[in-house]
Structures are given as C-alpha cells and as structure tokens.
C-alpha cells in the first residue's frame, strides 16, 4: 500500500524522539558506559612503525605483572584464508579484516594492533603494554598514493596483483584494482568539443570524526556462549564478523546494540570486538576495551585520500560533449577503497554522451580506509564539480546554467549504464534558481559558489516487529542501531499506519537474538528499508486488527475499515456497530485469538537515488588566507521527509563535515610515516563559531518504491561542499584551489602566487 499523496497525520511532523529524554539527561548507554560483574580492562599495543616485519613478540613480562589476566597476539586468532565478502561499501576480505584487527607477520601502518592485554584496572593494563617487547625489522614505507603506484615503491603485500588488468600482471604491486567505465566514443566527443579543460585535484584522507571512540565489552561463558556489547553501526555485522574471525558459531554470539555516538560509515566494521572476545575467552572474565582518541585516529578507518584528474569537453554554449576522469584512491593498508562507487558517482549528475572513468585502488602504509558518508563520491565530485566551475568561467557561462544545461533527468543514461528514473536533480537546480540566496548581494572580498552531489542510497535486509500491548499502545523493534533519530522516523511510520499518536508507539533497537537479521545502519538505508519493513509489519497488524474487530462484530473482515486507530464497519451494508478502538480490540485479544503482533523481514529494493545542490558564500582574508563561511544553503531531493527536523539535521551535519574536509581537516604524516596530528587539537573539525546557520531546502520528489516516498538523505550532503567552497573562494579572491584542504597557508600561498 502506498501513502504517497495521501493526507498524513504523523509523517511530516516533528515529534520529540523516543530516546530523547535519555540522551539529554545522560541516561543513554553508549559503548563505553557498560560494566559487567567481574569485568576487566583491555588495552592494545600498537605499532610505532609504518611498515615492519614482526620478528618476535615477548609477552612474558607483561603476563607476570600482578593484575594482568591475559595477553593475546595474532597467534590467538585463526589464520583465516582469503575470503571475500561484501561489507560496508566494498568487497572486503576476511583475511585482511583479521590482520587489520591484529597484525600477523607484518605491521602495515603506524598504530596497527600487534598485541593486547587485559588487566584488573586500566592503569595496570597500560603498564603491561610497556612490558610487551616486540622485535621489528623496519621496512621502507610509502604514504602517498602516487608514490605507492610507482614501479619501485615498497610493496605492502607480495601477493597483490592488480585486478582488472589483462593479462594478469607478472609482478605484484600496490595497485589492488583498476576499474573503468566507458560510455560512447570519448575521443570523438573531445573532437566535437569547442573547448577542452584538463585539471588535477588532490585531497588528503579525512576522518569520520565521530565524537564517541570505539568501545565494547565482551564476555564468554564456560559453555562458549558469547555476549558482545558494543557501539557499532550494526550489531548483526559485529556478530557475523566476530564469529568469522574467531571461528565461533554465529548462534553462540549475542550482540547487543549500545547507543552509538556517531559513525558516518566508520563503525561499519570491527576493530575491538574480536580482540575483546579473544581476551575474554583467554581470561575467563568480561573484558572492556575503549579506544583513546589517538587510537581512533591512528588505527580506525579514515576516508580515502585521492588524486583526481578531470578532462571536460564542451560546446561554446556549454553543452558537454565528453568527459574523462582518472581516480587514484588510497585504500590504506589493505585493498578496498571506495573507488568503484567513486567512478560511478563522478559524472552521475550529468547527461554526458561520451565519457570514460578509470579508478585505481591503491594500498599504502596508512590505516585501512572505512566508509565515510557517500564513500568515494566526495573525492570524485571534488574534482568534477570544481572542473565544471572552471569550465563555466572559461566559457563565460554562469555555473548554474551550465549545470541546468547538462543535468541528468529521467531518461538520461548514466555513464555506468542504467537509465535514470524518478530523480530530482533538475528540481534541486530549479530550487537554487528560485532561492533568494542565489541572487543575494555580496560584499567586497566575498564570493559565491555552487556545486552538486549524488549518492545511490541502498535498501537491503531489514527486520521489524510491531507488537500491540493490551491497552492499545504499540512497540516497534528493529535491528538497526539508531544513529541519528531513526527510532523517531520508524515510530512515526508505524503510528501513521496504525492511526494512533506517535507518543503511543515505543521504538526500540533489538539485539541479535531478539529480531531478524538486519543489515547495518549505513548507506542511508534505515528510514527507507527498515522503515519499509516496519510499515509493512504495521499494515499486517492492521489487517489482524480488522479481523479481530470482524470477529467481535461477527461480520466478514472485508467489511471492516481501519481509520484513525479505529475499526469501522465499511459502509451501511456491513452493519451498524459502534467503532472499536485499537485499545478495545487489544484488550480483548486473548478472546479473539491471542496477542496481536507482526514481524517482517525483507530485502528492500528500490532505494531512490539522491541529488543535492549547495550554495556557499565565503569571505577570504587576503593577508592571512583565512576563509570564512558566510552563508550556506543545502538543497536536496529527499523523496519525502518523514521527520523533517532530522532530515534537515542530516543535511546540516553532512554540510559541516564537508566544510571541514574543504578547509582544515587532513591527516598529517611525519618523515617516519607516523601520524602527526592524532587528536582533535590538530585534526581540526569545525567548531560552532566557525559556521553560520546552515539553511536547507527539502525538495520532495517521492520515491515510488517506498510506502511514504522516502529516499535516503544522509550521504548526499557531504558530496558538494568541498567544490562549493573552492568555487566560492575563486569568486571571492580570484584564486583556484585544487588541493585539499584549503587551509589558510594553502590559500595564502595561492594568493601570493597569483599576485605574482
């Protein structure tokens, strides 16, 4: 059943979220907030080298320290064979995941886990780390992507041969994969062009920067039953990965979802949980491990750094004839950068007759990248959206018109093949044109830029259960950790279907033993896919309620209508009965067949793609290179905003991360291959005083595959900001920045260069 176009009472309003009071009073329990009887503390010994062979690990001294209960190294984990599985945003190899959690044979980056201890206090565990001695043979290392691609680069993996190249290369290299998408005749397209532009854009790895460090508690009972409490984007993922990495039956692990303090893709895989389990198994005690902020930066996944080469050809009137992009993405220590999606996103916004996109997935001595909001897309769009702006300037066309002229619409064939349908990109451009921000006057030293962004969004496996209580209130359980208010949107959809106020629906996140399998919270899928499961479960409950009413009235269920939380006889022929409320039906449910509930597990398809366009005003201090964001408007097709405040919040948060990516965030390595800024002091995420209010416009082009028309919204907003800011800087100061971050020293150097 679809609710699109219907008059809705709950969806589209802004109720208070069900978990809100716990979160403003400090009662909500996050990863590190759990304690268990007899619990001890784990800590991880990490590599100080960017690349080294582990010759020997001496754990005896640590083990003899009073209070130390267990020490583990790679020897305590099965040495599993290469086995690929789809995970997070890319194909992932469990062998790599295992070796990322605990180095085996070699350490591949500064911060790589080598051993772990569990002790009766954090201080003892810390002291024990110092007593673990490791003999290393230090190896040459490589940090940057193009250096890693060089013929003579130090090799991370002797067994890595570039995939996607035929014939198979005879020598291993750091290039894990080459991928290409081609549409039309690229050479002919460039021949047809009146104007060709070719530029190169670079970016450093940036971290997701969730404020909650990774944390977990694991316990193993004598019969092998395991419990894991952790903060992750998917406790089913935690269960599956831990089972795999430690050789445990999935049913022997119960994973409990803690509240999660931000993830943005960075908590779609495991770091601590298998180690805590191994320590718990060895010590016989529950073990808690909490990362320090420094560990988060050194050892958990950032987003890929990249080099992006863009070539565009266009007619004088701005019509694009051809495009060519080369993406070189850093995967970190193991293969698996999001270069594949990057390739598909590069030209996704445009109707380009001829195009070629080539991507390289490159390993280097940095932490393995993890998904980060629209993984792969921001890097590609940083290049393409900047280059389009440069093209607009060279052609003397305004950048909005250039985009309007080339925008993908329903029926446009994407470079990666499929024909778009039900997309709202052009609508976002129209909204830009109509927005007062677009024509607002600017002062001296100020400039305005625009840029667009795209993300696929996904569906996937989701389970939801709706239970009706004896008094007619309801509970809805799902298997997705609530990272940004999804309990609210799920409860709202259920309330809408049941026809009751949202305050009468309690939404909870159930553990892995209490609800059907649910894929992780990521890819902007929860409101879409899990919302779909919850909606359908609620619809089944309504069917059941109608049946129960029919039984009470002794009429046929088809003769019962459900409106506003009440059963009504459907028309005069059904009989003259007083309507029955949900509460009245629930109260008598024992007599009509037992408790009323429905659980549904689906694999949701048809996630509608998301497009957005942003307008950014900046002011540049020509003497210091400082860039101030004066005004920012994010416009996005959201399908249908279930809880508009949290949709706006997704846009505002994504924009702010994008602004951080644009201006100041970067991984800085020293000459020894060690991360030089592993803390919030020098890894500079935006603070409140850096920003203006972030205005949003929610364009609603409904997604026909979702009962309420919802699309995923969380990923798109991080895509446009880097280019929007660069394009604004150009108009404010006349200099084109092509390397991220556009921090004051870089901007000033560019200004100095342009002043000659």
């Amino acid at each position, binding site marked *: 059943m679809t609710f699109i176009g219907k008059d809705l009472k709950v969806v589209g309003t802004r109720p208070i979220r069900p978990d809100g009071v716990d979160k403003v009073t400090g009662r909500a329990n996050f990863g590190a907030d759990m304690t268990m009887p007899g619990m001890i503390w784990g800590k991880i010994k990490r590599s100080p080298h960017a690349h080294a062979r582990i010759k020997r690990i001496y754990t005896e001294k640590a083990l003899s320290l009073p209070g130390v209960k267990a020490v583990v190294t790679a020897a305590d984990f099965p040495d599993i064979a290469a086995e690929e599985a789809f995970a997070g945003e890319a194909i992932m190899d469990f062998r790599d995941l295992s070796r990322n959690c605990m180095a085996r044979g070699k350490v591949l980056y500064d911060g790589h886990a080598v051993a772990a201890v569990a002790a009766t206090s954090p201080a003892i565990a810390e002291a024990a780390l110092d007593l673990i001695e490791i003999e290393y043979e230090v190896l040459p290392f490589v940090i940057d992507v193009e250096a890693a691609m060089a013929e003579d680069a130090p090799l991370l993996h002797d067994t890595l041969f570039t995939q996607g190249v035929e014939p198979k290369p005879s020598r291993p290299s750091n290039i894990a994969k080459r991928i290409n998408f081609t549409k039309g005749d690229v050479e002919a397209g460039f021949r047809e062009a009146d104007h060709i532009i070719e530029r190169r854009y670079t970016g450093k790895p940036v971290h*997701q920067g969730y404020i909650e460090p990774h944390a977990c508690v694991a316990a193993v009972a004598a019969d092998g039953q395991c419990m894991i409490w952790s903060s992750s984007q998917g406790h089913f993922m935690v269960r599956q990965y831990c089972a795999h990495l430690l050789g445990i039956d999935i049913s022997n692990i119960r994973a409990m979802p803690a509240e999660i303090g931000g993830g943005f893709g960075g908590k779609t895989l495991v770091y601590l949980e298998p180690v805590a389990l191994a320590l718990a198994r060895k010590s016989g005690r529950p073990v808690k491990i909490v990362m320090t902020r420094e560990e988060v930066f050194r050892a958990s996944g950032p987003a890929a750094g990249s080099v992006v080469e863009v070539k565009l050809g266009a007619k004088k009137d701005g019509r694009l004839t051809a495009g060519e992009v080369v993406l070189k993405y850093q995967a970190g220590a193991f293969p698996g950068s999001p270069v594949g999606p990057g390739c598909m996103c590069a030209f996704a916004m445009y109707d380009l007759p001829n195009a070629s996109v080539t991507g390289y997935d490159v390993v280097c001595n940095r932490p393995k990248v993890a998904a980060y909001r629209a993984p792969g897309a921001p890097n590609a769009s940083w290049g393409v959206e900047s280059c389009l702006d440069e093209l607009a300037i060279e052609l003397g066309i305004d950048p909005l018109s250039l985009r309007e002229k080339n925008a993908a619409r329903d029926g446009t064939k994407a470079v990666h*093949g499929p024909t778009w349908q039900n997309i709202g990109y052009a609508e976002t451009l129209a909204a830009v044109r109509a927005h007062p921000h677009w024509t607002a006057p600017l002062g001296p030293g100020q400039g305005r830029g625009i840029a667009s962004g795209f993300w696929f969004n996904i569906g996937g496996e989701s389970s939801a259960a709706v239970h009706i209580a004896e008094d007619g209130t309801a509970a809805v359980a799902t298997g997705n950790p609530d990272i940004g208010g999804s309990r609210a949107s799920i409860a709202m959809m259920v309330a809408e279907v049941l026809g009751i106020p949202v305050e009468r629906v309690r939404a909870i996140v159930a553990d892995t033993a209490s609800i059907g399998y649910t894929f992780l919270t990521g890819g902007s899928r929860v409101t879409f896919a899990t919302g779909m499961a919850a909606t359908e479960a609620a619809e089944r409950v309504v069917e059941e309620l109608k049946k129960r009413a029919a039984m009470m009235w002794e009429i046929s269920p088809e003769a019962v209508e459900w409106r506003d939380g009440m059963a009504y006889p459907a028309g005069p022929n059904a009989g003259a009965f007083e309507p029955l409320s949900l509460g009245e039906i629930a109260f008598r449910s024992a007599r009509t067949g037992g408790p009323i509930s429905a659980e549904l597990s689906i694999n949701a398809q*048809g996630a509608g793609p998301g497009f957005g366009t942003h307008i950014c005003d900046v002011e540049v201090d020509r003497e210091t290179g400082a860039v101030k964001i004066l005004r920012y408007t994010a416009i996005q097709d959201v399908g249908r905003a279930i809880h508009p405040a949290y949709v706006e919040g997704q846009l505002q948060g994504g924009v702010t991360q994008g602004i951080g990516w644009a201006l100041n965030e970067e991984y800085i390595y020293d000459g020894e291959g060690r991360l030089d800024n592993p803390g919030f002091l020098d890894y500079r995420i935006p603070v409140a005083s850096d920003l203006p209010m972030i205005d949003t416009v929610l364009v609603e082009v409904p997604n026909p595959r979702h009962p309420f028309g919802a699309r995923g919204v969380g*990923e798109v907003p991080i895509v446009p900001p880097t280019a929007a800011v660069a394009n604004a800087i150009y108009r404010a100061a006349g200099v084109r920045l092509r390397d991220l971050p556009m921090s004051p020293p870089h901007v000033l150097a560019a200004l100095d260069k342009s002043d000659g």
Partner: protein
Amino acid sequence: MPHVVISGDMVRRFTGGEREFEVEATTFRRLVLELDRRFPGLGHQIEEGMAIAIDGEIFQDAYAAPIRPDSEVYLIPKIGGG
C-alpha cells in the same frame, strides 16, 4: 530476449572482454545461472560483487528481481554506504 550489459571491466577475466549479452531470463537468478553456464565462475562474482539495474532501478541480492523481455539490464558494482 533481454539485452544485458556488464558495466565496467571487472569481469574481463571471466568473459575475455565481452560485456554485452542476450540472455533468456525472467529473473536475476536465471540470468546469473545462465551467465555462469557461459562463463564458469562469473556467477559467483556477480552474486558477491554486483548489483543489477533493471530499467534504471537497482536491485541488490535479489534473485526474484523480475526482468522483462525488453528490459534494459546493467550489472554494476554493489553499492554500500557510510
């Protein structure tokens, strides 16, 4: 008979470079089985690593995804997210 295009070049090692096929199939499952019959190993590769776009709509891990005779069918890399 649906025209099927494998987007990108990641399965060249199975198909020897061929990317476009006419495949008699009414579902994704049938399509995978048929392609695997022609190029042994390709089926697993598609199931693990690829999504199917049928007339512009993306399906992931969906054997039953329906294919019509005139459908536009693309096999593209699977999508995740952050």
